[in-house]
């Protein structure tokens, strides 16, 4: 069965420190993975997708098929990075997007 696991509900880091938000997935086929973000009082929006291999707002994520992981990383956290982050699997997995439970990131000034 398809599943996305985000083990950390809450994560706090100091400004300027590196940050890593963990995501593990369960899917037997070729996955498509995404990170969505929700800033305070804003709607959920796409941050990045693995197929584009791009860096958005300093964030990167590498798909590791061996470890079935898609961790989100940023070398130097900024206060404006404080938000709720969701890892998602899909839509090649039979049309659905499967979302993780989310990680709330707080960057401490």
């Amino acid at each position: 069965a398809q599943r996305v696991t985000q083990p950390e509900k809450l994560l706090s880091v100091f400004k300027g420190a590196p940050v890593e938000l963990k995501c593990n997935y369960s899917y037997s086929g070729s996955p498509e993975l995404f990170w969505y973000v929700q800033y305070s009082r804003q709607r959920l929006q796409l941050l990045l997708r693995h197929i584009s291999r791009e860096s958005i707002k300093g964030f990167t994520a590498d798909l590791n098929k061996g470890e079935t992981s898609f961790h989100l990383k940023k070398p130097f956290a900024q206060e404006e990075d404080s938000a709720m982050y969701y890892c998602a699997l899909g839509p090649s997995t039979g049309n659905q997007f499967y979302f993780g439970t989310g990680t709330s990131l707080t960057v401490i000034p």
Partner: protein
Amino acid sequence: EAGVAQSPRYKIIEKRQSVAFWCNPISGHATLYWYQQILGQGPKLLIQFQNNGVVDDSQLPKDRFSAERLKGVDSTLKIQPAKLEDSAVYLCASSLGTSGGADGELFFGEGSRLTVL
């Protein structure tokens, strides 16, 4: 560009009452999704439309939930009768692409927060 519009933003009802939510997707988006997000959980897909046809409604509690997308544009999601466990944010999203493929970007509305007392 106008985003996905949803209404109402907030609704409080008593159990066994009914409620309806409305969604207007981004113009030209073929695919429309309704998600349920319970506090502390990630969004869970309830139903997915492609144009005006249902692609996936496997997780829709059909004894009480119904949804339609007439003319392949706006959509409504109805709950009748509501239960306490239906308290959640109901998110509507749309995407340009059809099922599958690498399009992948969902555009979300602000959500409709339902409280069932």
